[in-house]
């Protein structure tokens, strides 16, 4: 794992910040919001150590900021890479990686539905688990469940 980490650090430098190993087989790093699409593209195309599969995406609300977590899988080295992208609460927008990883499509819709992260460039950013006319994003920590939020419940 350390060797893969070193190779990633050499290839990306500061763009993949705080890179560390989470036992047993996951590398965890942080990417700036503006650089996400570019870094994801290069991670996917990296020779010998590509991460062509996006396993899942999760939105997390840390009250101070939101986070979009990407879990990538490398078939050649059989290892995971977890990318954390910090997103400010007031402008909850992040680039979509849907064009690179088709698997991210529904996960990004779910993160929009539940946490309210808007993915710029997503082809079809509709609600997925909740109803079309639902109001609010329930997995935000400041969400208050009101009757008005469920128009047709």
């Amino acid at each position: 794992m350390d060797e893969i980490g070193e190779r990633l650090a050499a290839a990306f430098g500061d763009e993949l910040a705080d890179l560390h190993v989470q036992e047993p087989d996951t590398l965890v790093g942080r990417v700036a919001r503006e650089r996400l699409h570019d870094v994801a593209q290069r991670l996917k195309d990296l020779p010998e150590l590509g991460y062509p599969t996006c396993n899942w995406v999760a939105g997390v609300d840390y009250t101070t900021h939101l986070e979009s977590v990407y879990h990538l899988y490398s078939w050649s080295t059989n290892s995971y890479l977890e990318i954390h992208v910090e997103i400010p609460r007031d402008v909850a927008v992040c680039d979509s990686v849907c064009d690179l990883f088709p698997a991210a499509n529904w996960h990004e819709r779910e993160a929009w539905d539940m946490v309210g992260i808007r993915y710029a460039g997503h082809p079809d950013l509709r609600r997925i688990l909740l109803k079309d006319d639902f109001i609010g994003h329930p997995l935000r920590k400041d969400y208050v469940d009101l009757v008005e939020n469920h128009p047709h419940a």
Partner: protein
Amino acid sequence: MPEPLVEPSIFSEAPDEAIRLAIRRVMDEQSVSDLEGLELDTVIVNMGPQHPSTHGVLRLVVTLDGELIRDVIPVIGYLHRCKEKLAEKRTYYQYIPIVDRTEYLASMNCEWGYVMTVEKLAGIRPTRRAEFIRVIVGELMRIASHQVAVGTFVADLSPLGTAMVFYAFRDREKILDLLEAVSGARMMFNYFRFGGVRFDLPDGWVEKCRHVLADLPQRIDEYENLVNDNAIFLQRCIGKGVITQQDVVDYAITGPNARASGVATDLRRTRPYSVYPELDFDICLGEHGDVYDRYKVRIDEMRQSVKIVSQCLDMLPKGPVQLGTLRAPYTLAPPPGSAYVGQENPRGEYGTYIVSDGSRYPYRLKFRDPCFINLQIFPKVLRGVKIADAIAISGSFDMVLGGIDR
């Protein structure tokens, strides 16, 4: 250009967003294609949410051109029970029975995945006997789950298949009896605990289990004899709904659906957990990734699971099934941090991602459900096939809507 005909839905008066999207796509496509002016027989049909072939409340907005499918928009969420929201107000211990209800045909495996993630977060190691019991119940559950999958899949294809459902459910019953003897429940087991399992195996259970296992291989042969030489069955399966290896990589397909395409991805082997490294079993692979291979892989996996359980029964060590040090599991508060553990469910990689803030409640819990992800490739696979084949293809995916909607 006239708007396509929309079949009226009994569930809502006005077309909702999915229908509007389907109409928009038809209009866009027609305006750019060279078919302009040609009278196309385009109809938009709601398949589901209550349709026997969708195995749950899945709704497919299907755009048909005659009998050919031009576009599919899956609509999910009809079975959404806010599981990730519920986690915010439940302790780690209280949440175990809720995990059961995600993918309800493989409850044991789901619990296992969740419990493993919490164990990773809290640094708990289960006892050795408990590890073996976990593998035993997990693999029994896999057999039972595949029996439902194969049985209902064949039933979708032909009237002959109704017999298959009865055969499969007759044998599943014996496995559920075994699991009931272990946990006290038949479907929602609530059996796994942090550091072990709830109860030890009851007296005489091992012999009963051996008895059932001895019978199973013949039963599985029986399933195969029923349909494998049936010309109609083969015609409807072979070469239909192909998932390529590139699709597996792009769409993160896992489980039997990926293995049917010849991709050797099985978390029990590629990133082994529990006592799987000590056990001898094969990864079952298909070749073409079509409907038939997906069915065949499931049949083969049942045989492998029988093999795994038999080995575990032979190797079963003596000892406690719970950690003595964990006196009050409901006060468990893992240190701050996050963890993800993937577990090989009967349908693929069932992962749990938990963020802990050091309290007794998970700060954020996310399930990576295999069916949710496998369903994403649906529009791609179904485009251009006949509507009758769509039934065969969707049956071969083996979806559980409880997992998709959470």
